[in-house]
């Protein structure tokens, strides 16, 4: 027919025929009852497709020649369109189709099983008719209805469920919908429907969920509910600001608990406990972030900034961390494997990094290290050195050069002692002297006090001094009698022998009793010339402490009075042969000591600030006030947080000493004077 130029008639005939045929089909579909509606529709669609196939084959010639030239719709497409217009969009079918589909979805959502295969076919039909048909006739209303459904459901759940359960339900629904799409919806709907669920079930209730009493985020954190937290993380990640909200609440919680921790006077009584608690807290949250929050870097950062915030709320944190390290290095790490030692030291370093006042830590660390080295009470030399290396890596050579100097002195002293005894073989039988020669700059400064050593010792000490100065010219030695220890063998009344480990002061006092049975305080003071407060403390530790009372005091009071009399305690007993009485262990500082240290730190900071100012001004030649403050603060950040008022004071001092001048016209500007 086409060849004979009757293409028109053929085409229009096709249209008419098909249309009327479809109208009949439409009727039969409409007549289908209840559940059979979809089946009927599907069957007829199947038929239609088959027929369309055949028709196309038959009319192929027309399809190829007549249609392109007249720009009419090709046969197949025509068939689709006619189906769409006459069946799908027919008044009675359109609504019923949609409602049926939505009803089925609802049924499935409420737990019933539906004919998924049939659903899939119908949906496919809609897709075949064109994406816009799918979207307009199904998807859009589907999404609306779903939103309503989930709105209602989420409202219901949130009233009766706790957070963890709610999240489980939300997760389940989400998975369901995704599965639904896979099974019988078109792939393009996946994101759209999941967005609906996310919005209705999660986004709309986010804050309420997080803050839910007894089961919200904070409770989950406190109880280490890894699974629930993980679920929350995954779900909230899907919605805008979800993770942000979690992070915010977590941060303020950590800051709050941290703040309580560092300001609680009970906790502060034991520094080692205090630091251990900090480490435990850190471990706890590290675990949570690893196990539940996918090692999310933003959460790590939030954790770090929170710790940095509250650790620095307590000015004693640097001291306490140093005391913690001291305890570990003195005994805590005994028997611990090398790997575990490294782990603990790394954790200490992590706390150290949070400190703003690193120079305060340095001061205490030096004091405590000195005590450890001098009393020989370090568990592992390797552990000590390992920590020094870590500090050096973190803070640079300047920080640790003095500490390393201390180790060097210890080693050198050993060699010196060998040399001393080698050159004085006659001393082999007498008391053994061990001298540590400390280089003044490296060790914490101590004022040296008076102390009269017993004759045997002073002779020995002089010999050593002569020996040392003989081999090292240009040096000055001063005995630090307040830092030494002694081991003395004592025999008591009933013949019981003990070896006493005492401080040098205590030794001086005890040796007096070799020549006298009774001595009163004044006599002891005169003979030893030890400063009064130290002497009193020394006598107390030997006369008033149970188990260490090698001396007897009359009267038996706790305090040392000027007229008190002392005797050797012949009744002294101890189940140990070796008794330790000395007190050289590092302790939490008393209030006045703390003030003194703080003052020294402040004094030390002044030249550092000035040096920074001069450095900066030298290179910039001139700079305005705000910029100097900012630069100086930045430069000193790794050691301490510089106070702007203090910086200003230093600037003024430098102006007075003609290092800097103020610009005449712009008083905010400073200039470097070469």
């Amino acid at each position, binding site marked *: 027919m086409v060849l004979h130029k009757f293409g028109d008639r053929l085409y229009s005939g096709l249209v008419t025929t098909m249309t009327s045929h479809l109208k009949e089909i439409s009727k039969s579909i409409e007549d289908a009852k209840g559940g059979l509606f979809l089946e009927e529709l599907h069957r007829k669609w199947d038929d239609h497709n088959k027929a369309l196939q055949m028709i196309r084959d038959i009319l192929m010639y027309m399809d190829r020649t007549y249609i392109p030239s007249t720009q009419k719709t090709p046969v197949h497409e025509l068939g689709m369109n006619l189906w769409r217009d006459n069946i799908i969009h027919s008044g009675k079918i359109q609504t019923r189709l949609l409602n049926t589909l939505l009803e089925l979805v609802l049924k499935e959502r409420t737990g019933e099983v539906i004919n998924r295969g049939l659903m899939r076919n119908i949906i496919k039909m809609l897709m075949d008719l064109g994406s816009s048909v799918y979207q307009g006739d199904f998807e859009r209303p589907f999404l609306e209805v779903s939103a309503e459904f989930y709105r209602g459901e989420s409202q219901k759940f949130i009233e009766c469920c706790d957070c963890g359960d709610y999240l489980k339900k939300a997760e389940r629904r989400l998975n369901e919908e995704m599965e639904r799409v896979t099974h019988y919806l078109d792939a393009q709907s996946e994101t759209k429907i999941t967005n609906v669920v996310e919005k209705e079930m999660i986004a709309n209730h986010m804050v309420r969920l997080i803050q839910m009493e007894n089961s919200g985020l904070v409770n989950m954190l406190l109880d280490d509910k890894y699974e629930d937290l993980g679920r929350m993380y995954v779900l909230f990640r899907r919605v805008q600001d979800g993770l942000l909200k979690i992070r915010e609440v977590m941060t303020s919680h950590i800051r709050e608990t941290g703040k309580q921790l560092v300001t609680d006077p009970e906790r502060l009584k034991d520094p080692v406990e205090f630091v251990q608690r900090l480490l435990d807290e850190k471990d706890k949250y590290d675990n949570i972030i690893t196990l539940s929050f996918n090692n999310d870097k933003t959460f790590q950062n939030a954790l770090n900034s929170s710790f940095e915030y509250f650790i620095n709320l307590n000015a004693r944190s640097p001291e306490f961390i140093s005391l913690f390290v001291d305890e570990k290095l003195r005994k805590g790490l005994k028997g611990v494997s090398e790997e575990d030692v490294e782990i603990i030291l790394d954790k200490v370093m992590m706390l150290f990094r949070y400190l703003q006042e690193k120079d305060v830590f340095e001061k205490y660390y030096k004091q405590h290290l000195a005590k450890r080295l001098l009393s020989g009470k370090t568990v592992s030399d390797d552990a000590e050195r390992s920590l020094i290396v870590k500090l050096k890596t973190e803070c640079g050579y300047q920080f640790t050069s003095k500490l390393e100097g201390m180790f060097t002195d210890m080693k050198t002293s050993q060699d010196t002692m060998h040399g001393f005894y080698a050159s004085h073989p006659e001393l082999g039988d007498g008391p053994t002297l061990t001298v540590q020669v400390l280089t003044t700059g490296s060790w914490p400064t101590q004022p040296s006090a008076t102390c009269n050593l017993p004759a045997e010792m002073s002779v020995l000490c002089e010999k050593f001094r002569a020996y040392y100065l003989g081999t090292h010219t240009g040096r000055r030695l001063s005995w630090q009698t307040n830092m030494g220890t002694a081991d003395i063998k004592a025999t008591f009344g009933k013949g019981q022998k003990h070896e006493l480990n005492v401080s040098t002061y205590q030794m001086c006092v005890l040796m007096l009793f070799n020549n006298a049975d009774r001595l009163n305080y004044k006599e002891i003071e005169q003979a030893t010339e030890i400063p009064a407060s130290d002497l009193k403390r020394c006598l107390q530790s030997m006369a008033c402490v149970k188990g260490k009372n090698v001396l007897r005091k009359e009267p038996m009071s706790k305090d040392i009075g000027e007229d008190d009399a002392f005797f050797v305690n012949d009744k002294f007993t101890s189940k140990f042969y070796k008794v330790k009485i000395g007190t050289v262990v590092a302790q939490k500082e008393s209030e006045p000591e703390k003030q003194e240290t703080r003052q020294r730190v402040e004094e030390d900071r002044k030249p550092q600030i000035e040096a920074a100012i001069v450095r900066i001004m030298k290179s910039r030649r001139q700079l*305005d*006030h*705000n910029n100097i*403050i900012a630069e100086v603060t930045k430069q000193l950040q790794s050691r301490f947080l510089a106070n*702007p*008022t203090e910086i*200003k*004071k230093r600037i*003024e001092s430098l*102006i*007075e000493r003609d290092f800097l001048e*103020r610009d005449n016209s712009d*008083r*905010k500007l*400073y200039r470097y004077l070469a």
Partner: protein
Amino acid sequence: MRRSASRKTGQPNSTPSLNSSPADLFRSASSKATTKELERIDALYYSYANGSSAMIDPEGIEALCSDMEVDHTDVRILMLAWKMKAEKQGYFSLEEWRRGLKALRADTVNKLKKALPELEKEVKRPTNFVDFYSYAFRYCLTEEKQKSIDIESICELLDLVLGSQFREQVDFFVEYLKTQNDYKVINNDQWMGFYRFCNEISFPDFSNYDPELAWPLILDNFVEWMLAKQS
């Protein structure tokens, strides 16, 4: 000038030559008048100067003041010193005397006295005042290498120099200086800072004062003290 003319005359000529310009005539006429003035100025100098040191010493200044009927602690004497660019407090050298009196066109005590109001006006002009204010501080540094002035003297100086212009600020600042313990002396930087402070900062609310800026620390403390007092 023609080469021949200069070669002919050779030496500098003090008498006006016939072919000089009107300006030259005027200048030389005034310099003639100045020579007479200069003589009187010098004479006046020697009438007050100390015989042995040939300088006007504190006694001489006191005499001058009483002749001018001005108290010797009056700020106008300081202004006079400024005009002379006098270096040492309590003393005038001949050069300084000449400089000052010549500038004031005064060669008698009376003329000098009459020149004082004009001098005051001149000093009070903003451009001059900063210079005068700065001078006042330097003038009080009596020892060599001295960089700061004690609190007592500073209070007097402040009152003298700024009292008329910034009465309230001076009074409060003086009170503060006398009560505080941090500073025993004031240096030049702080001195100049205070003048800037009086000019720029609204008083007594200090609403535009920002301690984070480059104000000397003593002023930060002063403002803090004032605000504490006011609340």
